[in-house]
């Protein structure tokens, strides 16, 4: 796990760098398929590949903690949540040609612009910065844990409060008392999302 110590440069890639680029290409491909496939469930599954690819990249950068967090949170919960969402909204299995909204080009422009900005900013900022990954690694669980429980102990505890509040909120919003038993969700419960208190309404009334 060392870069070519003392002789950093793009012209003499190490094994790690080659692996990094290969995994990166795979991740990019998976991401592309995610947004282009016509099958919703497939998209979700390709997302798993893309997010997993990120985790591997983190590992290659010796950030093992972040890598496992990535797997846990994104692969483990976000994608699962997505799949749940697809199931609960009775999304069709198979092709759904009408899934595209027609704003694809706009989305493409936004995505490219965002990516370009990011790349530019990061490259601009870290143009020739070389981080020595030797020694006790930054991203290891041990270091992270030590820092978390020393320096970040207050934000960490505050986060626990946040989770508690979220828990209470979830209960408040979903708790059903004794008198009602109905299916979890039905069409009639879908929230009307279009401006009820909009200015137009306010003016009409």
């Amino acid at each position, binding site marked *: 796990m060392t870069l070519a110590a003392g002789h950093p440069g793009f012209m003499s890639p190490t094994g790690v760098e080659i692996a990094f680029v290969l995994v990166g290409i795979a991740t990019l491909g998976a991401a592309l398929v995610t947004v282009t496939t016509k099958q919703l469930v497939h998209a979700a599954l390709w997302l798993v590949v893309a997010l997993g690819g990120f985790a591997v990249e983190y590992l290659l950068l010796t950030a093992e903690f972040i890598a496992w967090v990535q797997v846990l949170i994104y692969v483990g919960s976000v994608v699962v949540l997505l799949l749940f969402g697809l199931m609960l909204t009775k999304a069709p299995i198979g092709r759904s040609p009408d899934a595209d909204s027609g704003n694809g080009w706009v989305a493409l422009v936004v995505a490219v612009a965002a990516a370009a900005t990011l790349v530019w900013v990061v490259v601009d900022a870290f143009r020739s910065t070389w981080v020595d990954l030797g020694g006790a690694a930054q991203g290891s669980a041990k270091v992270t844990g030590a820092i978390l429980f020393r320096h970040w102990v207050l934000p960490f505890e505050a986060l626990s409060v946040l989770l508690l509040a979220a828990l209470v909120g979830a209960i408040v919003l979903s708790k059903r008392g004794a008198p009602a038993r109905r299916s979890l969700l039905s069409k009639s419960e879908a929230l009307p999302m279009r401006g009820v208190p909009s*200015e137009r309404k306010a003016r009409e009334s």
Partner: protein
Amino acid sequence: MDHLIGALIGAPLLGAGILLVGGRRLDRVGHWIGCLLAAVSFGIGAALFADMLGKPTDQRTLTSHLYSWVPVGGFRADVAFQLDQLSMTFVLLITGVGTLIHIYSIGYMAHDENRRRFFGYLNLFLAAMLLLVLADNYLLLYVGWEGVGLASYLLIGFWQHKPSAATAAKKAFIVNRVGDMGLSIAIMVLFTTYGTFSFGPVFAHATGASQAKLTVIGLLLLLGACGKSAQVPLQSWLGDAMEGPTPVSALIHAATMVTAGVYLVTRSGAIFNAAPTAQLAVCVVGAVTLMFGAIVGCAKDDIKKALAGSTMSQIGYMMLAAGLGPIGYVFAIMHLVTHGFFKAGLFLGAGSVMHGMNDEVDMRKYGGLRRYMPITYVTFGLGYLAIIGFPGLSGYWSKDKIIEAAFAKGGTEGWILGGVALLGAGITAYYMTRVMVLTFFGEERWEPAPDPDKTPGVEPGIEVHPGELPHPHESPRSMTIPMVILAFGSVFAGGLFSINSAFLKWLEPVTGHSEGHSPVSTWEVTAATLVVLVVGGALAWAQYGRRPVPVTAPRGSLVTRAARRDLLQDDFNHIVLVRGGEHLTRSLVYLDHSLVDGAVNGTAASVGGLSARLRQVQNGYVRSYAVSMLGGTAVLVAATLLMRAV
């Protein structure tokens, strides 16, 4: 002791708060609360007075700084009090007479269902008046000034159901506004000139300003004083203000509020001393008013209005004295105090008479009352003797000094002013004798009480039996006791003040004093005064005492008729001010409609249009809100980067 100054004002203010906020549930005890807090205030005043007497002369000034209201740069608006000998005199007068009138009102207003509110207003008046005389800067004085204006408006219009009362209240308010405007402009000019509102620095540097500025300030202050003290040309409201309940007339329009102008001029003595032109204007206003009021007083048949004319005239004396400068300040204040006693006593006596006479105010329908109301007769009589300056009584000591000081001004001015003051004393004797004779002597000219439904001018709360002859009777204790106390003051106050020049020595450290060089000696003045007094009194006796008095007033000469109409003051106001004002207003309204409104409405319409267009953006869709946020972020980031690039 400093903090007691706040309590002095605080007690009646608290009373006003309790009584006005407390609502109907306090109806049963309201008047007691009002009296108690007025008495508390008097008690504190007396304690402070005792404390002050115990100190050496040069350390008698107490100050109390409560807090600063937004000090910004050079602008300091402090809530701070200053209690010196001048303020102390007023404090004792205001709280003392005020307490007596509170007690009197318990009986007088006994049948009025709004008695609690009345006491609330009285307390409010006390607090505002105390604030006025205790302020240590012009801004706070102005707050008190407006406060008494408000209280007097509320009290004059207390019987709102009487259209005349409502109109009178409005009139007093509007006329006072003119004066208040003068005062407020004066304060602004003061601030731009001296950079402060506080009395101390202003007076210390009074002479530093240019003569023109000093004169402007002085004249503007005088305008303010004219409004509040009912001096010509802003005198017209005082007569109408008698529509208020009689205790109000006694407290506000005789003893205390109307003297605020005299206080202002005396307090600002340093400025007037440095501006002789303004000082002369004060003298002239005082002299004119003293004649004006006296003449009006001679012609009125309404007892309260006759007394109001007399008030105007007596304050004219005070103004005259205050305008004389250091020769006169002390006597102005001394006359103010003695006048507070006897005029309050006279008004309370008048109220007592009305109380016994079915609320009749026309003196031509009185007569022979001395047999029916002995206490009122005696106290009123003592007040009468005091006001005309009967030797030995209060008025004699203070009024003679003013006449003497007027002569002492020297030169032609001195002769004119002194002459006017002397003549005024004669007329005073005339009209006061007239009131006395018409009311208490002669045959009984009583008439059946008018039907209250047909004549709206009747004070409510007093039992009226339409069609019956009145049954004059003495008033209850709560009314007679204050009258007796005030009568004592009318008799002895002046004498006490004059023993060993006590009052002069008391007030001198504040106002300063200088003896003028009178071209006539003291005994000459006294003798002359006595002569005009006897002549005036005798004339009145000859006219009203020896002949039967017609119940309906004769047409009278042109002068009498003019005097009955307050020397045409309202007509003057109407023709010159109201008509002129109407024309001015009409043309302004035209301008306003065509130009200003156009501009304002145009602006309003364009703002409204812009508003309507802008709110289109607020369409209720989250996605467009998010886009606007994203756009905003992009703009912000770009602008930040741009700033670096530039």
